[in-house]
């Protein structure tokens, strides 16, 4: 047990180290930074959906909330350390409240989808309509559809004039991503993580065993929101502006697509799906022959139809079959995780 854990950590560090060293020689660090941030965002949904069975159509809401919280706090405070912390806490608290409301109401998948989607829309519409000068939080103007530009970006803690940008910012983001990955891995190995998987598999059984399912789902939902909020704050620093587009349904759709393409129920799938698809989008943005949205949509349809478990599980089961160590009994796991609640529909 201890042994396997050590091996996993070591593997993670080696692979991450190689990637951090190799990738900047192929792609600009500016692009890589945003790929990492999207990877973190995909990871946040991959955690609650793939391991907790919570389908959230509004993960973008927590991403946007993190970004806006950072921007507003940074303008008011004038340095970046405290705003980063607040930007993680605010989405987490919002998710605690929303999650408690939904999970203690014993709502099933579809209703969960509707409510998270609607909450995202409410935030989007609200932020979009705050163009007037009367919408201020402290000294920060919300700016409506124009967003908030010109806030303090990341600095060395304690020294507001020592900005972290460019290559340095890429390395900071990469290290944070590795830390988040290791923390979530530890969480999944812990009793909490294994109980979460049990709840994903059979809520009724777990509650009959004496587990408070609603409380545990609420906490997991909040952890996912905290990670999404962190990604949002990092995104705000990268883009140096926050706009209502962060809350949009399109953004939520993309996060879900990343998870499906990468593969649910795996840790690396959603990260790779996010980074890969975001890079593809960036590469496609250079041409004007075929519309970008069209390709994103087509990818989603084709994956749902033909490769419902996603790339990472597909490749790893292919690996297992070719090297015939153990029969892949969990082949259709990803599809199953998604459609678990169909009887309730």
């Amino acid at each position, binding site marked *: 047990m201890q042994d396997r854990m050590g091996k996993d950590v070591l593997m993670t560090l080696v692979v991450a180290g190689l990637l951090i060293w190799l990738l900047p020689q192929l792609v600009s660090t500016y692009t890589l930074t945003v790929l990492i941030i999207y990877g973190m965002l995909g990871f946040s949904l991959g955690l609650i959906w793939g391991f907790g069975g919570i*389908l959230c159509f509004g993960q973008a809401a927590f991403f946007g909330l993190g970004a806006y919280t950072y921007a507003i706090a940074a303008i008011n405070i004038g340095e970046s350390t405290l705003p980063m912390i607040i930007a993680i806490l605010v989405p987490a608290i919002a998710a605690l409240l929303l999650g408690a*409301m*939904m999970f203690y*109401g*014993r*709502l*099933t*998948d*579809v*209703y969960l*989808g*509707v*409510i998270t*989607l*609607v*909450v995202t*829309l*409410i935030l989007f*519409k*609200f932020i*979009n*309509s705050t163009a007037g000068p009367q919408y201020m939080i402290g000294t920060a103007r919300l700016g409506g559809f124009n967003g908030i530009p010109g806030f303090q970006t990341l600095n060395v803690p304690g020294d507001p004039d020592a900005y972290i940008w460019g290559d340095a910012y890429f390395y900071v983001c990469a290290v944070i991503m590795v830390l988040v990955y290791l923390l979530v891995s530890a969480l999944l190995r812990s009793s909490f993580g294994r109980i979460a998987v049990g709840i994903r598999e059979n809520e009724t059984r777990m509650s009959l065993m004496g587990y408070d399912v609603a409380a545990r789902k609420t906490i997991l939902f909040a952890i996912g929101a905290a990670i999404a909020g962190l990604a949002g704050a990092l995104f705000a620093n990268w883009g140096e502006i926050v706009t209502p587009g962060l809350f949009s*349904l*399109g953004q939520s*759709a993309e996060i*879900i*697509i990343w998870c*499906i393409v990468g593969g649910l129920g795996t840790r690396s799938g959603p990260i790779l799906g996010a980074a890969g698809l975001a890079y593809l989008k960036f590469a496609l943005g250079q041409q004007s022959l*075929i*519309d*970008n*949205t*069209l*390709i*994103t*949509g*087509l*990818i*989603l*349809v084709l994956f*749902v*139809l033909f490769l*419902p478990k996603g790339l990472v599980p597909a490749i790893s089961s292919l690996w297992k079959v070719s090297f015939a160590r153990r029969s892949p009994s969990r082949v259709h796991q990803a*599809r199953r995780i*998604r*459609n678990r*609640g*169909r009887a309730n*529909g």
Partner: protein
Amino acid sequence: MDLSVVILVEMLYAVASLVLISAGLAVVFGMMKVINLAHGEFMMMGGYATITAVNLGVNVFVAMLVVAPITVGLIGLVVERLVIRHLYGRLVDTMLATWGLSLFFIGVATMIFGNTTTGISTPIPGFSIGSYQINGYNFFIIVVAIALVIGMLVILKSTRAGLIARGTMQRSDIAAALGYSPDRIYMATFFCGSALSGLAGAVLAPLVGLVPTSGGAYIAKAFITVIAGGPSLVAGLLSSAGLFGLVNQIFTFAISPVIGEVALLVSAVILLRLLPQGVTGKFFKGKL
């Protein structure tokens, strides 16, 4: 006095447009338990079909009431055969696949029509009540919505197809055991649902500037209206559209249109929390 008439008309209009927006989705969800997240794009395509037909010299009412529903219905048929058919019984997968389709159609529309706003003028002139100006086209929308609801009731209650449809809605397995091919029923249902979406998009097109992403404005409203309505098709549609339409208009008049929209969404969240099975899951049980 004049003001109250205006407010009444506006309320009716708000409810009627919600009914129109949601009808296609409600038919597909009620009959097939499929949530078509490309519904908004079906409406958008109905709008484009109308505008294209009008530009080709077709009468505007023919374009709205005939050309658009048939065009979108046929597109729906293709979508059902190519995609939806493979995903029956997998609720979340159909939601995801149709979300993908919605992005796909936005992309196609952008490539064909470009990312600019197009539109047609309203074919019915406005008039005034006292000192207030009223958009005459609003009456047309109300009439279409009423006709739609009556049509749905008549078809469901007094035709053979309606009887089969009602049977399938309640127990699709039993209907299949009685010899009605679910495959063909679903195909027909999806055609009708898509045609209704096309009709709604066409009728609403003169009121909005049309862009390829216009569907996004509709889908959320349609989605929550249908889910909040619950299992009964017509009663659910009317009760939740009525409720949300009222809330929307009250807050729009009292504060601002944006707050009206937000109030609609907030009331939807509260409603679903209190009645997770929708309005007709609790009241009007067993109605159509």
